């Protein structure tokens, strides 16, 4: 049974992939993200963090984009190109990190709530609601001031909001498949509950989760930049895009490129993620299969 399922899963994957490739938007999105990942991976080999990324050269400060500094330089004369490229590492790490973290926690909570229902459901979902009703800013401030400002803590802070998101989705989709025959049959086969959830229920909640993930990563990157705006983002001099953006807003008129370039970087990334997400949504949508 399990084996059969796996094969089925693979073919389904191939089919999805096939359909995904037909979606122009999704393809563009994927291409951009692929590029981004490459940048993130190679940038430490291309740029030296100490000298190129955070090394200051006040003589060169606030230079508009030119042949030497493609993106210009910031108020410390740091090459913006290097910083933006390197920043991809941070922004992706934050996006992926907190979403991943949230995914795990949220999925566990959500599947418990959805699978057992009743008391467990009530308690968990109420809790989720409450967390939800606390503004993200407050969550962030509390966590950051409890654990101190650092990329990791920021990720944790953002992860919480993601977790609530996932918990809801997973719960919903678990509830829909919970009572289907094949689940009951696997009961009959005497599988332990956790195995049933893991192997037979969660795979069927996959598509909403995948879609949500792509979208959430985008949202998280945005939130990170918002937190930088409020001064509780990634501490300087790390070139996280949000930090670059909110740092550059002092120059939004004078040297707008300092602010515009990271802004565009964030925008395109989020855009790409969303396009991919929408593409996946359509590709994974069983109702569209012929």
């Amino acid at each position, binding site marked *: 049974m399990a084996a059969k399922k796996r094969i089925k899963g693979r073919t389904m994957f191939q089919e999805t992939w096939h359909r995904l490739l037909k979606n122009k938007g999704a393809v563009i999105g994927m291409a951009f993200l692929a590029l981004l990942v490459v940048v993130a991976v190679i940038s430490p080999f291309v740029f030296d963090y100490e000298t190129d990324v955070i090394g200051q050269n006040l003589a060169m400060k606030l230079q508009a984009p030119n042949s030497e500094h493609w993106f210009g330089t910031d108020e410390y004369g740091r090459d913006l190109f290097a910083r933006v490229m390197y920043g991809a590492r941070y922004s992706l790490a934050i996006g992926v990190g907190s979403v991943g973290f949230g995914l795990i926690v949220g999925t566990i909570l959500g599947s418990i709530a959805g699978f057992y229902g009743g008391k467990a459901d009530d308690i968990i979902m109420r809790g989720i609601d409450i967390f*939800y009703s606390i503004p993200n*800013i407050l969550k962030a401030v509390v966590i950051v*001031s409890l654990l101190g400002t650092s990329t990791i803590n920021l990720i944790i802070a953002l992860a919480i909001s993601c977790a609530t998101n996932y918990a809801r989705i997973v719960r919903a989709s678990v509830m829909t498949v919970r009572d289907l025959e094949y689940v009951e049959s696997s009961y009959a086969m005497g599988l332990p509950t956790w195995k049933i959830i893991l192997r037979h229920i969660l795979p069927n909640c996959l598509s909403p989760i995948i879609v949500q993930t792509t979208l959430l990563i985008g949202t998280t990157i945005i939130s990170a930049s918002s937190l930088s*705006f*409020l001064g509780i983002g990634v501490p300087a001099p790390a070139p996280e895009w949000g930090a670059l953006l909110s740092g550059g807003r002092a120059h939004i008129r004078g040297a707008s490129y300092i*602010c515009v370039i990271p802004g565009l970087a964030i*925008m395109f990334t*989020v855009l790409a993620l969303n396009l991919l997400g929408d593409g996946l949504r359509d590709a994974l*949508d069983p109702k569209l299969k012929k």
Partner: protein
Amino acid sequence: MLKYVVNRLLSLIPVILVTSFMIYWAMSLTEGDPAMMIAGDGASQEMIEQIRHDLGLDQPFLLQYFNYMKGMLVGDMGKSYVTNKDVFATFFQYLPNTLYLGGSAVIIATIVSIPLGIYTAIHQNTWKDTAGMVFALFGTSMPNFWLGLMLIIIFALHLRLFPTGGNFGWKSLVLPAVTVGFGLAALITRITRSSMLDVMRQDYMTTARAKGCSEKRVIYKHGLKNALIPIITAIGLQMSLVITGSVLAETVFSWPGIGRLVYESITRRDIPMVTGSIILCSILMCIINLIVDLVYAFFDPRIKAQYSKKG
């Protein structure tokens, strides 16, 4: 139906209890001493101690919380540490502004999103679809404050069409509303699109066509109405998010909204203000959700039936 509403409202009570406790707890955990913030620079140790005593901050946390809740029972949410003003009153001074901003933002988002969502759904998997979605995503893809500042530069500084900020007449509402609204557009559009896609596959759409309905009528009368539920959900969700979630826009446009209030109170460790506002916010959210649910019933007889079953 009424019974349903009542039940829903009753279910608020535990939420309030837990929320207030968590906030209170969180605030007491966070680094930073309200007394110091009040005493200001160069205050002597004993001065700070005295303030702590006056505010009852020297008591054990649970006792503080207990006292706070005692007040709550008689509807007294306490006074702000900073302004010495009544928390409840202050919140309701800010609330209208937030509702104006949130409301108009959501409306803008809706007006943009629903037609766009339908359009993209009709032209699924064509370049029109992609173009439409990209447009919808634009606002969401850029950080709020960035968009805000850009708008100010263009429309306030250069074109002089709208004020840069503040709360003076409808004109000052436009830019912040657009900023926030665009941030929301993408989600609503996406939901509209996917939910329309689902609906358009339904047999009753063919039935409608077979009856001789024009394509327009099929889409709007038969399609949209069925697609509406998830859309409304999304809108409601957005509405409740906007309430506390537009700190940035509010800061950039010096718009006196709840988000700012809460944030400033947090930075000043104004515990009663923070706790109070967030409790009120969560009540507000619950009410919004309730309204959303009632709107469901209004659009979908099946849900209405469920409610009446529930009691």
